[in-house]
């Protein structure tokens, strides 16, 4: 996602709908796709996307350029998506307990080879669903949206070391899950 020009933001904050649409066109793909991965279905993703842009519209005048506009949009998107996910998914008992997962992780892990590309999407969604919203959003921002550690830290308002540890834990948990899948398949 490219950053938005300052004059476009200023015009949009003054109420110019064309400029606001320009912002929407430049950022909606990121917002929708992150929302889709975090909330798991398109109806929820649409709702989150609409919420995010209404928040942006209402708060444009108070945006003070302390962070880049892009980082601000990342933050609103992830927070809105996580809140929506939590509201629509109260039962967290089925989530993976990361500490237990890490303890049970063997040193010599099997490689994940031979995975069909055709069912990547469904498989990935099922795997991501095993993660907590915080770990999931961190991994999505890194692996799908290609954000750097610094950008993730800015978007989630967390230290860089927390970004590292969340990514590490999320990857460990996914390795355990995929290993389990392989055993189930055998």
């Amino acid at each position, binding site marked *: 996602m490219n950053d938005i020009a300052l004059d476009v933001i200023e015009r949009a904050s003054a109420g110019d*709908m064309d400029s*606001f*649409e320009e912002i*929407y066109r430049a950022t*909606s*793909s990121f917002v*929708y*796709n992150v929302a*889709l991965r975090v909330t798991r279905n*398109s109806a929820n993703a*649409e709702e989150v*996307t*609409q919420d995010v*842009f*209404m928040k942006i*519209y209402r708060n444009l005048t108070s945006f003070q350029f302390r962070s880049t506009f892009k980082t601000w949009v990342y933050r609103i998107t992830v927070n809105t998506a996580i809140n929506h996910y939590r509201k629509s998914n109260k039962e967290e008992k089925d989530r993976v307990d990361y500490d237990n997962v890490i303890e049970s992780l063997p*040193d*010599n*892990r*099997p*490689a*994940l*080879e031979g*995975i069909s*590309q055709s069912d*990547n*999407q469904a*498989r*990935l969604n099922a*795997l991501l669903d095993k993660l907590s919203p915080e770990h999931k959003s961190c991994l999505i921002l*890194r*692996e*799908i949206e290609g954000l*750097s*550690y610094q950008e993730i830290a800015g978007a989630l308002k967390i230290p860089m070391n927390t970004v*590292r*540890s969340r*990514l*590490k834990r999320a*990857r*460990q948990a*996914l*390795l355990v899950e*995929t290993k389990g899948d392989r055993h189930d398949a055998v």
Partner: protein
Amino acid sequence: MQCKKIQELLQADYLDGELDQKDAQFIKEHLVQCSACSGLEKSLQAQRMLFKGVKPEPVPERIWSNIADAIVTERLNQQEGLTPGILERLRDLIFLRRPAVVLATSLFSMIIIFAFFANFAIQRQVLLSKQNAAESIAGYSLNNKNGYVLYDLGTSIEEYFL
């Protein structure tokens, strides 16, 4: 560097290209020699392939329509809500809703009114006293040489002692 430390780096900084060149080169050389670490690295790379295969979904056009409609509705509501908002603020100013403020204002008003009437009554009493005193002026000869000296017996207590 120990395998444990290398495996930690493999799962974050090394995989994500956030490691400096020197450390990255060190790990690359280690992976050639260590099967445990190279096995983990292969697993992580395979996991990454799952993400690489993901293509961004197109954003449904109706989302923008919904947002644009919501913004227009919000603007209309703001315009409609402007006049009643001013009236409400004025009403709040005139009819104070806070009980503590109302009580304090009432008490203050009562004190002012009481003070006004009390002052009025005192002034009236003083005036009457002066009139009474004037009516009962008495002449007392305290010094025969100087003749009569008039004393205004302003209060009843003085009259009592005299």
